[in-house]
């Protein structure tokens, strides 16, 4: 009888605690304007996984579609109408959605911008350092070429904020190496098929070049060299699973992967939860600095080997978590399930 009582008491306590956890359950809104891109899909999965792993999020309200800043204004305003506690947003650009962010923070909603910054001062920012991303990779490439030669410069989408920041970093590295010239400059639009077509055209045209810098459309570039039988040149890409695999498997390929974690989305959700819990960060802007892993130095090789993961989709960045921020497991992010799914 005593046991039963104790058991009941424990059960009641457990239920009570569960009830309390429910009462705390936050409702978090997410807004993203690029759909069907590996990096962004990983970001969304990281957001879902972190919301689930935190145990503090009752539901996610996800506005995830291909649209412009005006469409993102609509999505953020809809999320405000939905009564969320926080909004984590990957902004279409730095200035265009300020009006809706201000409306959200005025309504007491915590807003965290991930991946790219916004200029609205009431928002928190957790972003990858895009200028540094381009600078690190370009500098490595120019050093590989001994400071002399022509490179193919394969950018992202014309007019995109992140592409603009990366261009600044690339130009900064160019300024340090006066012997480097640009053989061809193209916009891949961050589209695999487009990038592959462009590099095929460049190879076929016989333009002389000694290296390739890509803004994350990387594995198809290596494929193009291998398929056409053209001599391999040093290639810089992002830490996408496919490219990271190629860096260790393709014979004669010299290259470097620069990290650009899509899991920054999960870190953004965690930051939003911490702020809702009353733990505000000292600074409103948190920058995640990239790392460079090359397959030339021993240190780089070790990092590449540790990061390679055959379970990931080839377009996903291999840096699926950010130490100190994300707490989900590898299986959770691959499952891509949020609370209540």
């Amino acid at each position, binding site marked *: 009888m005593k046991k039963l009582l104790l058991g009941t008491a424990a059960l009641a306590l457990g239920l009570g605690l569960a009830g309390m956890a429910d009462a705390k359950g936050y409702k978090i809104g997410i807004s993203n304007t690029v759909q069907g891109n590996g990096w962004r899909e990983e970001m969304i999965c990281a957001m879902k996984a972190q919301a689930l792993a935190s145990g503090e999020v009752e539901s996610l309200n996800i506005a995830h579609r291909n649209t412009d800043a005006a*469409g993102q204004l*609509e999505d953020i305003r809809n999320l*405000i*109408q*939905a009564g969320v506690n926080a909004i984590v947003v990957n902004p279409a650009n730095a200035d265009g959605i300020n009006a809706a962010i201000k409306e959200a923070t005025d309504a007491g909603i915590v807003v965290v911008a991930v991946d790219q910054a916004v200029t609205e001062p009431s928002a928190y920012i957790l972003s990858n350092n895009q200028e540094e991303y381009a600078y690190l990779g370009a500098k490595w490439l120019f050093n590989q070429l001994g400071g002399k030669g022509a490179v193919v410069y394969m950018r992202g989408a014309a*007019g995109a904020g992140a592409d603009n920041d990366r261009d600044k970093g690339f130009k900064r590295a160019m300024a340090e190496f006066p012997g480097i010239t640009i053989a061809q400059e193209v916009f891949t639009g961050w589209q695999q098929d487009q990038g592959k077509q462009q590099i095929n055209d460049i190879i076929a045209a016989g333009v002389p070049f000694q290296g390739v810098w890509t803004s994350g459309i990387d594995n198809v570039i290596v494929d193009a060299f291998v398929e056409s039988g053209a001599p391999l040149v040093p290639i810089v890409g992002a830490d996408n699973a496919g490219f990271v695999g190629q860096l260790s498997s393709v014979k004669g390929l010299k290259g470097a992967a620069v990290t650009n974690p899509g899991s920054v989305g999960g870190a953004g959700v965690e930051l939003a939860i911490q702020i809702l819990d009353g733990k505000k960060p000292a600074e409103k802007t948190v920058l995640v600095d990239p790392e460079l892993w090359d397959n030339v130095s021993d240190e780089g090789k070790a990092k590449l080997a540790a990061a390679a993961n055959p379970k990931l989709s080839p377009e996903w960045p291999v840096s699926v978590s950010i130490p100190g921020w994300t707490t989900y497991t590898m299986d959770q992010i691959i499952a891509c399930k949020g609370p209540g799914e």
Partner: protein
Amino acid sequence: MRRLIETNGWTIGLGLLLALLLLATRLIQPDFGTSGLDSLARAALPFALATVGMAVVVIAGGIDLSVAAMMAVASVTGAVLMDGASDGQAVLAVIAVLALGLAMGALNGALIVLTRVTDIVVTLAMLFVWQGVALLVLNAPGGGAAPWLRALVAGGITLPGVPAGLTGWLPRGVVFLTAVTALIWLPVARSKLGLMIYAIGSDASAAFRSGVPVGRTRIAAYAIGGLFAALGGLSVTMGTGIGEPIPGPYLLASVAAVVLGGVVLGGGRGGLLGPILAVFVLRTVRMDLTLLSVDPNVAAIVEGTIMVAVVMFGAVLATRGRGA
């Protein structure tokens, strides 16, 4: 009265559908009110203006695939001209952008008339041209917008001497949309030009035999379409405060709303109120899907399905009506 209902049945039906959807929104989100209406109006504004521009061209028997790209050109041009400009200069900038819109549309129309190449091919080519122009004007999002211009579409209407409770619910965005559409379209629709636009859309050779200058009318219709596209681009800049060189998702959305709004693809029939109501219906559906937290990948399917269902339902009604 009966004739009014018969000829405008589709538009009235869309109005009822919109009312039902707003009611449903209220059920989903009991707090939905003035601010919700306001955000709906602001979201609908660029879509509505693009749709009106497209509708005019479609009524004239054409189609303009470059509408979103022209909006981008107008948006970046306006944002560049208004960046750091005084209020007076901003007025001039707005006039310049509207003139640019007319010119872009007229050029599209003139190319179709002069080269005799199909409208789809010409405007598809111009889509790329205007995209490039937009990037030349501004290679990354930037520029600015005059505060008075942005205030035109933000918040509810306040009239001096009238209590705010009476008019505050009516979003400025809706008033702005109604005002510019009426200001441009009503004089056209009531003039000979309006009649000629419907005539060439209905049957170009019959119109030609009746003495309608088909080529010039077609160019005029495309120019009006360009003017509305410029207004749409300006409305994007009014909402965001900047210019964006990459065109937004307005092309397909405007064609969809034109069809849903009861304008016949092929031309000659339909009005502008139907397509505008259709835009609001589509935006409200999008809002409800976000409020209901529907999986985003499913949401697009739901939007498309609703569109097809409504158009098919309308077709069934129309056939029945004819049979009776």
